[in-house]
C-alpha cells in the first residue's frame, strides 16, 4: 500500500498529523536537553506521570488534572535538586523518577488495583489518536514553539554556558524554569497521545543525529525536525505494509538515522 492509499484512512491521517507535530515539538526541545545532559528527562517525567495518574485515580478526579500540575512541579523539582545539591542532571532525574514509580505502585497496591488501566496513560498508541488529540497536539506544538522562538537566544546562550549567559545579563534561572516547564507539559500531554516510547525517542534520537552534522544551532533544529518527520511518515508506511507495530518501527528508523549520521561523521563525510 503506498503513501497516498494510506492517506485515505482517517486514523492514518490523524496519526500522521499528530505524530508530525509531536515529532517536531520533541525534537526541537530535545536539542536543548541533549546538550544540557538531561536527555532522560522524558522517561523520568513519564514515571512521575505514572505516580500522579495513580493519585488522580485514588482521589477520583480525572487523572490528567492531577498529572499535569504534579509533573510540572516535579520537573521544577529536578531543577531544584540540580541547583541545590550540585548533582548531575541524570542523578536528579533518577531521584524524582524512582519516587514517581514507587508512589504509583504504592497507591495502586493500597487501592487494590483500579478499574482504569493505569498504564494506558503511559502507552498511548499513535494509530489510535482521536480528533481531539490531534487538535491538542497541534495546539501544544504551536504554543511551545512560539515560546521557544521568543526566548531562542536566551535558551541557546544558557545551554552554551550558564555562567557566560549570566554575565550577559540573562536571567538563567528563569530560562531554565521556562524550559523545564515546557518539557514537562510536552511529556505529560504527548505521552497520552503517542506513548512514552515515542516521546522519549523523539526527545533524544533526532537531536543526537542532527548534532553529528549541524554547524549551527538553527541547522541542528532544522535537521532534527527533518529526521523526526521522516521517521514518522516512513514508520507509518513501513509498519502498515509489513504489519508491524508503528511506534516501534518509528523508533528503529530514528535509531538507523543516528547510526548512519554517526558513521558519516566518523568517516569524515561531514564538513567544517
Amino acid at each position, binding site marked *: 500500500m503506498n503513501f497516498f492509499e494510506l492517506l485515505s484512512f482517517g486514523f492514518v491521517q490523524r496519526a500522521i498529523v499528530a505524530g508530525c507535530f509531536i515529532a517536531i515539538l520533541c525534537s526541537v526541545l530535545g*536539542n536543548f536537553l*541533549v*546538550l544540557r*545532559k538531561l536527555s532522560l528527562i522524558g522517561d523520568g517525567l513519564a514515571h512521575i506521570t505514572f505516580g500522579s495518574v495513580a493519585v488522580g485515580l485514588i482521589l477520583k478526579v480525572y487523572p490528567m488534572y492531577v498529572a499535569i500540575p504534579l509533573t510540572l512541579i516535579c520537573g521544577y523539582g529536578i531543577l531544584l535538586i540540580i541547583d541545590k545539591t550540585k548533582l548531575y542532571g541524570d542523578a536528579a532525574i533518577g531521584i524524582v523518577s524512582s519516587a514517581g514509580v514507587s508512589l504509583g505502585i504504592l497507591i495502586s497496591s493500597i487501592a487494590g488495583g483500579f478499574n482504569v488501566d493505569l498504564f494506558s496513560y503511559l502507552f498511548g498508541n499513535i494509530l489510535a489518536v482521536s480528533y481531539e488529540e490531534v487538535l491538542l497536539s497541534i495546539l501544544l506544538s504551536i504554543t511551545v514553539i512560539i515560546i521557544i*522562538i521568543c526566548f*531562542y*537566544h*536566551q535558551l*541557546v*546562550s544558557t*545551554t*552554551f*554556558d*550558564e*555562567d*557566560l*549567559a*549570566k*554575565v*550577559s*545579563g*540573562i536571567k538563567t534561572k528563569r530560562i531554565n524554569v521556562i524550559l523545564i516547564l515546557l518539557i514537562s507539559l510536552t511529556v505529560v500531554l504527548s505521552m497520552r497521545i503517542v506513548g512514552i516510547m515515542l516521546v522519549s525517542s523523539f526527545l533524544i534520537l533526532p537531536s543526537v543525529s*542532527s*548534532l*553529528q552534522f*549541524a*554547524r*549551527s*544551532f538553527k*541547522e*541542528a533544529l532544522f535537521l532534527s525536525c527533518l529526521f523526526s518527520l521522516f521517521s514518522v511518515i516512513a514508520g507509518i508506511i513501513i509498519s502498515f505494509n509489513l504489519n508491524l507495530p508503528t511506534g516501534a518501527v518509528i523508533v528503529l528508523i530514528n535509531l538507523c538515522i543516528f547510526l548512519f549520521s554517526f558513521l558519516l561523521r566518523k568517516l569524515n563525510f561531514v564538513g*567544517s
Partner: protein
Amino acid sequence: MSAIKVLDLSVKFEGFEIFRDINFTVEEGDYIALSGPNGSGKSTLVKAMLGLIERESGNIYFFDKPIKDFDEWYKIGYVPQKLSISPLFPASVEEVVSMGLLSKSKLSLRLKSYDKKKVLDALEMMGILDIRNKNISKLSGGQFQRVIVSRALVTEPEILILDEPTTALDPETREKFFEILSSINKERHVTIILITHDTGTVGKYANKLMYFDRKIIFYGTFDDFCKSESMSHYFGYGSQHIICHRH
C-alpha cells in the same frame, strides 16, 4: 567613579571558608594582574564579584551601583577559565560571538547588519575572522580561547575580566594577546582584571598587581611592589626580582 568596589566580601563553600572580608577598589582604566598560588581563591573571587557564586556576606558595586541593581551587563566582558560546553555543541564561531550581544540588545532570529559588524570587528581584533564560519568543535584550544575573548569584546565593554585566558596559547600568540589587551586598555580605557600566573610577562603591560592567597597579600602598582621590603620578605628577593625584572 570607581569601576568596581568590593566591600567586606566573604565566600564559603559547603561550610568551608574560602576568604573573608575582602575589600578593594578598581579604578576606571586600571589594568590589574591578579595572581596567586593554585587554590588561592582567585577564580572564586572573580566569580563572587560577578554574582556567579553566592556570597556569604559583603557587597559589590559596578560603577557605584550595587550588583543587585546593576543591569548594564554589556559594560562587562568575562572570559572564564574553562567552559562546560558539550563537545558537539552546534555553533559556528560567529554564532558564539554574537551571543555576547544579548546583554546589549534584544537579538532577532537573524543578526542585524550593525550587530554583524560588531561581531566581525571583535573577530578581526582577535585575528580569527577567517574561521568565522567554522564549527567550534573543530577549533584548537587556542582558537577557541580567542573566540571566547571575542565574545567578551563584542559589546565593547568598559570592564574586562579574564581568568587565565592564555593557558592554551603558544608563546608568540600569548605575547600578541597581551599586546591586544594593552591597546584595549590604553586606547579605549577599558578596565582589565587579568588572572594570570605569568606575572613576569604581564608586568610589562599591567599597571597594578594584586597578589591573592585567600586574602589580599599585596595590591598596588608594580613599582610599589618592586620597592616593597615586606614583599621582598614575603616572596624572597629572587621571586620578587622575577616579577619585577621585565617591568
